């Protein structure tokens, strides 16, 4: 695998705000394929594509796909067992 084509889930934060209506990069996710738990902001993000593809850091399976359609973002769930917001805000609300 040559794998320098990806960035981090962080890069898809703007799309996720449009899709979820909230900042999501600090939310934790669990891969339905291998059970790896990781922040959405830390997933492998392939953004040079027709949509943004987020893959599991453990096994590479597709977990989320965001496509910017003219009528709004469509966010599709792949191998996601669960997503949860961080237990208590990791940082205080911005002033």
């Amino acid at each position, binding site marked *: 695998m*040559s794998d320098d*084509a990806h960035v981090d889930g962080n890069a898809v934060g703007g799309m996720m705000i449009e899709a979820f209506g909230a900042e999501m990069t600090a939310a934790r996710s669990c891969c339905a394929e291998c059970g790896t738990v990781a922040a959405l902001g830390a997933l492998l993000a392939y953004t040079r594509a*027709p949509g943004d593809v987020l893959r599991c850091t453990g096994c590479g399976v*597709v977990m989320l796909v965001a496509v910017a359609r003219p009528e709004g973002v469509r966010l599709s769930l792949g191998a996601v067992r669960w997503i949860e917001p961080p237990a208590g805000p990791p940082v205080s609300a911005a002033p």
Partner: protein
Amino acid sequence: MGFVSRGFRGRRRADGPPGRVPPGQYVVTDFPVLSAGPTPDVPLDEWRFTIAGEVDDPVSWSWDEFRALPSERVTKDIHCVTKWSKLDTDWEGVSLDVLLDGVDTAAEYALARSYGGYTTNLPLEDLLDGKAWVAYAFGGAPLEPEHGGPARLLVPHLYFWKSAKWVTGIDLLAADRPGFWENYGYHNYGDPWLEQRYAGD
């Protein structure tokens, strides 16, 4: 049109010769690399191409068997749904007419499968009659892995996501089954001249 960025023109875009560039597309001279996942490393001695699904007997080729098939060199314009078009691209490959010759099927649909898990669907008839190839060379050189090598599907009359990189087979299907981008909101057919970008277009 809403906001305009004063003085912004963007990447130099040419309109191209009349009738060559579909609506909403601009012409590039480089070859952008798009990928939904890591580039698979496929040694040629492990590479296979298999036609399966609604067939009595699946047919399969090793790399050497595949390369022994009659091939052709074609010059085609390609159109990516992300709005770039590249004119006069030079490919060598094996026509799907050759690969499907003698395959007896009642299927009307095809699902291309790739190393790495990518899929894309299209009507079987769009693979026939000189419209599609499994291409192994670009510009006279072996197809680079980042562009889909060892071999990719080439279906230039549809948006380029239909031209699956790292293709390893085609399933012939009685019922249509959406592929990767088709599942995630892109158009099921993808005719660039009709701007069929998203599902519902």
